[in-house]
């Protein structure tokens, strides 16, 4: 008698549990997408130029997608120089400070936790399995820095921390 009454309960429990099954599909690899480069715009010879990580228009922006609430290790390979392409190749000094990167689980430029981009950080993604990294920096053009466009590449690598 008691066995017959417990069976319906087991079926009900199964129905309640079923909708959570898709959430158990954890990505084997975190997704990383650069949605905005670090753009210093026009800079003047001999005048250092800084882009704050909270500058929504100029700071670099990277979106991370992985499992909900996952902890991920964010590492950046940072260049020390920008280069001007062409025959008269020139370089331009680029510096990163201890608080030039920021992480936001809210994915808001105004809600960041700073970290040192040279050291990387362990970030916890939000309930949707997302988070955003912002990057600023400082350029130090020489007084006679050859004019023109300069570029460099920052590589961002994300791995599961757990």
């Amino acid at each position, binding site marked *: 008698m008691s066995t017959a009454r417990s069976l319906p309960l087991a079926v009900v429990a199964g129905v309640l549990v079923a909708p959570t099954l898709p959430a158990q599909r954890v990505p*084997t*690899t*975190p*997704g*990383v*997408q*650069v949605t905005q*480069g*670090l*753009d*210093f*715009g*026009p*800079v*003047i*010879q*001999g*005048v250092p*130029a800084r882009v704050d990580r909270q500058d929504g228009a100029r700071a*670099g922006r*990277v979106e991370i997608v992985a499992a909900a609430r996952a902890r991920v290790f964010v590492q950046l390979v940072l*260049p020390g120089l*920008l280069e*001007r392409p062409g025959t008269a190749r020139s370089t*331009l000094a*680029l510096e990163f400070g201890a608080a030039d990167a920021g992480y936001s689980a809210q994915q808001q430029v105004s809600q960041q936790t700073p970290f040192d981009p040279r050291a990387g950080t362990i970030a916890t993604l939000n309930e949707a399995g997302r988070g955003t990294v912002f*990057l600023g*920096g400082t*350029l130090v*053009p020489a*007084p006679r*820095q*050859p*004019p*023109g*466009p*300069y*570029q*460099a*590449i*920052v*590589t*961002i*690598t*994300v*791995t*599961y921390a757990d």
Partner: protein
Amino acid sequence: MRKLLVATGLVAVLAAPAALHAQSANMTVSADVQTALSVNAQNNLNFGAVVPGQTKTILPTDAASGFFLVDGAATTPVNVSFTLPATLTRQGGAETMPITFGATSASRSAANPPVRAGSTLFNPNTPITTPTNAVGQLGVFIGGAVTAAANQVAGTYNGQITINVAY
């Protein structure tokens, strides 16, 4: 020796999944370096001889007008403003003579090279933003008016006009 090889192989198999979990992306860092601005006085504003009781005006398009040459990045907007004197002071004395600047006392030229003829008039009392020419130059000319009192002490009177330029 065989045992050692087997052990090494096992480590490699275990390490492989961890490497698969890394994902990388590249971000571009970019900047456009521009030539620093410089400005030089090419010609002083010279009123010449002024008779007591006379008001003498120099137009910015006159050869006697002051001429500043700005050098910077090509075809780039530049902010221009002046610090203007209200009086000139007699050299070797303390007497003064008023100087005024009106709505058309200055002009600018982005011709290559900049020239007074055909330059665009503006009010030097109000800052402006105007572009350099294709070789990064901008000519700024300034005139004005001085009024010598009827009893103005004779002599040479000087003042200083300062131009301020910035991107």
